[in-house]
């Protein structure tokens, strides 16, 4: 049972006014800027951060075990205008070049609106949480101060400034915790109820201990992590954390508490639930990927609605499983609470504990934010992209299913590669079908590069269809076009990072305080303070590329029903006047049906994509290693809007394939067929990305259904699957499906001895099924 106070808090979050704002951040930033604006970047950063932390309200709520929250108000019109203007003043008048100097990466108008160019971070990374709780903030201060005192970087003003900024930041955070200790002590003095007095006294004492010292218990560890999270996310805007392997680094604390009789298993669960709730509570309402949502537009916060990730289970080394009692508790908490934040990544490995695997499947069955990844493909894959053996077992993920090695690298370096795009270029002599006049001369524009969403239009390799005699020839041309594009992307990115690197000298961001290497080197991760530097290349529109190549193979080289140029002409005409050809290509085998004719191209596309990536890494131009994922996030609509008709029958401008899913509605043979198709992808070369799977609750109901679901997942992992996330759809979804059948084409329902696609069932049967979901 979730403690009552947490239930109330969860409920309040859903009902919260979306305009509620932690407005102190804005006022205090302005004040801090006035006080320290003339100092060097890093000193100013540390002092402004410290100023904000030292002056914001201390909020201690009733009954809670962990503390740390911000005070919110509904800003007046004037306050809103002031806040918007504050940022707008800087961004609005900046040239593209200046913007590039400030930030060299992904931004959206909404994102910029909330952030000051001299005080921001992209987040999307993992701190050294284990060091933090084992050593405490005092150790960090001592380390940075020690390097300063030793005079290691005597002549280097950038580095001295960096370290002084770091010390100011650490001290600010430490002081912030001390203020909670003081406030709790004060409230304890006022409290009349004995339990309340005891709770507050306990909070005061534990906050006091972790002000500088290491954590001495599970509660202190979670409390310390929470304070750092609150300061980083709510004040500094460092969102989308990976908390890395919490079941590992918290285990010694948990075991010691149990042994000392200081904590029961149930109390540990409550602590975890309190921690989850706090993560959820600071999340933005709304959906940052939909800029038309006015909750997003009007929000002044620097937090995102993206969840923080927690990594559980997995291997500790070649043969030892990391699954322990805490792993169970973390999953149980997610199952009971059903929140969007945090998001759990469960690392499967061969031989994983069966009871744990069932608990995971059970939580997924009830639509918890839980996903599974496969160590047996991820570890070999990461090793191919220059991750060292000694680090690889620690791997995790952040926000968009992007892999990382916690605290050994900075955050958010990604770009999208539209995989079907080179098919279009290959069949059309290197020219795009749509808007060829928009092709930029030479490289991408600065704007294209900055947002990391390079979907063209631009030119490919000049070629002629008469030279193509076989499918292998066509695949070679596909490879040449993909390789050209990826290298162009790289060139653009590397150019930007040269500028960014130059401009980042002497700068600091909050994450630099908690990464391995930055303090020793006295420089931020961007200029080289950490071990790993990588860019994720997200291969998007996967199924569109696979189905298009499969269609070309079948139509031109197997059935020999059409020539390549007939196909090209039909695509150029968006299939207008080519209805018969269009019907035919639509009926050809599609990825997602366990059909080798299509699935062989899932392997080929992946191999070509990864070959190019590995070549690029061998050539190595700059700091970065490139890593492939198969992932679109939610941008498959936008990517499709730039592409002409494709050989699989998709019309011009329509969305391309989502993540690792088959084309919308293409999978007709059920979930095992879909998983078998996905297993055709050589995942030991791919480092992340989601496969969304939908099931109806009736297929996996009761204990037997759970066993079957756990088996399904395990068999998929054994077959070389990489990732899986599940939607079990019930009543509400069925109603939506009834109203928007096009979006639910693949929803398969089983009714005792038979099953049917829901939207193909007639209204009577649909109504009855909807009715059943109400009753049972």
């Amino acid at each position, binding site marked *: 049972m979730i403690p009552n106070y947490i239930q109330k808090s969860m409920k309040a979050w859903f009902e919260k006014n979306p305009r509620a704002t932690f407005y102190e951040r804005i006022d205090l930033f302005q004040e801090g800027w006035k006080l320290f604006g003339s100092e060097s970047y890093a000193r100013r950063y540390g002092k402004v951060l410290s100023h904000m932390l030292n002056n914001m309200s201390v909020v201690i709520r009733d009954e809670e075990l962990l503390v740390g929250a911000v005070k919110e108000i509904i800003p007046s019109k004037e306050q809103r205008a002031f806040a918007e203007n504050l940022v707008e003043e800087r961004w609005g008048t900046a040239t593209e070049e200046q913007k590039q100097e400030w930030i060299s990466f992904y931004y959206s108008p909404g994102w910029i609106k909330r952030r000051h160019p001299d005080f921001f971070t992209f987040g999307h990374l993992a701190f050294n949480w284990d060091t933090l709780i084992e050593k405490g903030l005092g150790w960090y201060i001592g380390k940075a101060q020690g390097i300063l005192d030793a005079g290691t970087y005597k002549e280097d003003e950038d580095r001295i400034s960096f370290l002084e900024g770091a010390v100011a930041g650490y001290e600010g955070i430490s002081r912030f915790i001390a203020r909670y200790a003081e406030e709790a002590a004060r409230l304890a003095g006022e409290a009349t109820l004995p339990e309340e007095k005891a709770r507050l006294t306990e909070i005061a004492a534990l906050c006091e201990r972790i002000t500088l010292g290491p954590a001495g218990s599970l509660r202190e560890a979670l409390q310390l992590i929470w304070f750092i999270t609150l300061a980083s996310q709510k004040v500094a805007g460092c969102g989308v954390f990976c908390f890395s392997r919490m079941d590992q680094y918290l285990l010694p604390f948990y075991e010691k508490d149990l042994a000392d009789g200081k904590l029961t298993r149930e109390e540990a669960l409550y602590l975890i639930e309190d921690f989850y709730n706090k993560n959820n509570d600071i999340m933005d309402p709304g959906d940052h990927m939909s800029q038309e949502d006015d909750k997003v537009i009007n929000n002044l916060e620097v937090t995102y609605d993206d969840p923080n990730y927690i990594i559980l289970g997995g291997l500790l080394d070649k043969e030892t499983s990391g699954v322990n009692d805490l792993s169970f508790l973390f999953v149980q908490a997610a199952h009971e609470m059903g929140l969007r934040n945090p998001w759990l990544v469960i690392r499967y490995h061969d031989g994983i504990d069966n009871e744990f695997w069932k608990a995971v499947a059970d939580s997924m069955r009830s639509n918890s934010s839980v996903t599974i990844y496969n160590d047996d493909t991820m570890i070999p894959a990461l090793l191919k992209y220059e991750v060292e053996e000694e680090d690889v077992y620690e791997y995790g993920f952040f926000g968009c299913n992007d892999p990382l090695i916690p605290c050994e690298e900075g955050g958010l370096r990604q770009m999208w590669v539209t995989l079907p795009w080179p098919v279009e270029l290959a069949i059309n002599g290197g020219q795009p079908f749509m808007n060829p006049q928009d092709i930029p001369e030479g490289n991408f524009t600065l704007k294209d590069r900055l947002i990391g969403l390079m979907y063209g239009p631009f030119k490919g390799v000049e070629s002629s269809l008469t030279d193509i005699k076989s499918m292998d020839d066509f695949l070679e041309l596909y490879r040449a076009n993909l390789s050209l594009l990826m290298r162009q992307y790289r060139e653009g990115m590397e150019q930007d990072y040269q500028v960014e690197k130059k401009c980042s000298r002497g700068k600091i961001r909050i994450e630099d305080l908690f990464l391995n290497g930055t303090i020793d080197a006295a420089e931020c991760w961007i200029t080289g303070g950490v071990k790993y530097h990588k860019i994720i290349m997200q291969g998007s529109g996967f199924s569109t590329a696979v189905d298009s190549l499969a269609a070309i193979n079948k139509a031109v080289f197997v059935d020999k029903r059409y020539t390549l140029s007939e196909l090209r002409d039909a695509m150029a005409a968006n299939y207008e006047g080519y209805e018969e050809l269009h019907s035919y290509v639509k009926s050809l085998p599609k990825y997602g049906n366990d059909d080798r004719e299509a699935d062989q191209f899932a392997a080929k596309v992946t191999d070509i994509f990864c070959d190019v990536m590995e070549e690029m890494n061998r050539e190595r131009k700059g700091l970065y290693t490139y890593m492939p994922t198969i992932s679109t996030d939610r941008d498959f609509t936008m990517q499709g809007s730039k592409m002409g008709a494709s050989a699989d029958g998709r019309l011009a401008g329509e969305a391309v394939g989502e993540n690792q899913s088959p084309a919308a509605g293409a999978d007709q043979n059920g979930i095992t067929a879909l998983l078998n198709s996905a297993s055709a992808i050589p995942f030991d070369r791919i480092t992340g990305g989601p496969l969304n799977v939908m099931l109806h609750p009736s297929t996996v109901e009761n204990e037997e259904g759970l066993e079957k679901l756990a*088996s399904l997942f395990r068999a998929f992992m*054994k077959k070389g699957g990489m990732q899986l996330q599940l939607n079990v759809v019930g009543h509400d979804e069925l109603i939506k499906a009834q109203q928007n059948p096009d979006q639910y084409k693949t929803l398969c329902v089983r009714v005792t001895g038979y099953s049917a696609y829901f939207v193909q069932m007639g209204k009577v049967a649909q109504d009855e099924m909807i009715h059943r979901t109400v009753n049972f």
Partner: protein
Amino acid sequence: MNGLIFNLQRFSTKDGPGIRSTAFLKGCNLNCLWCHNPESINGHKELKYIESACVHCGACASACPQNCLVVDETSWHWEEHSCIFCGDCVQACPHDALGLWGEDYTPRQLTDELLKDREYYGDSGGGVTFSGGEALLQNEFLFECLSLLKDAGIHTAVDTALSVEWPLIEKVLPVTDLFLIDVKGMDTEAHLKNIGVEPQLIRENIGRMKTLAESPEVHVRIPLVKGLNDDPALIPEMIKLLRGWKALKRVELLSYHSLGVDKSAQLVAGGEQELLEAPDREIMDEFFLKLTAAELPVAKH
């Protein structure tokens, strides 16, 4: 020899233990009022036409090599006797208004298809189920398929109403691990009305199965429809029929659902099915309690 299959259901979780695939064999000798698979009754191929999806464009008619389709603005007509079920019209229809029920497979083709999910069967203790229609009617084909699957080490199940001559049952016994037997009613008159045959043969076959020295495991499934076969007065006779059956490991009560109604309307050559109702909750509970009290292994419904 070929078999006629009208559907392959993968990740089938209601037709026996573990993760299974169910192959539905076309053709049935019963005609249950509540049939979920009216497209399974005829033992030959059929054309499916979804009137609501049809825009009367005539593409199907132009594609038909037999000229057996006549389409105008308001009507759509099919000459069944000249149709060769080539499927050209289905492919030509741009609106997914047409479909073919029934596909030919050799035993090898079918089992190859079914073996694609063997990892899932293996991990979950599942396998393959043959359903219908009446699976036992395509007896030779069924036997071949079951034998091939047994050779491959796959758990096999046959879903049947047992309303067939005993030799058809006897033939597949050695290659079947599990019989899923549908017991559709007790009252002779009602049986004739609801199902189209008298229950005599079924009872005899059950009697024979009970006496087998070596029997596959048996699960009995009892579909209940309001007013047709859910009279609790029949429970004692049901108990008499099922009691003392060593191989019987599970009894399942299935409440009626209306899936078949819309599907029968989609069949060009099929009749319309009448809408029936599920039994009241209390009746379901009564069946459950009384059968459980008689020490039958009833699963919670």
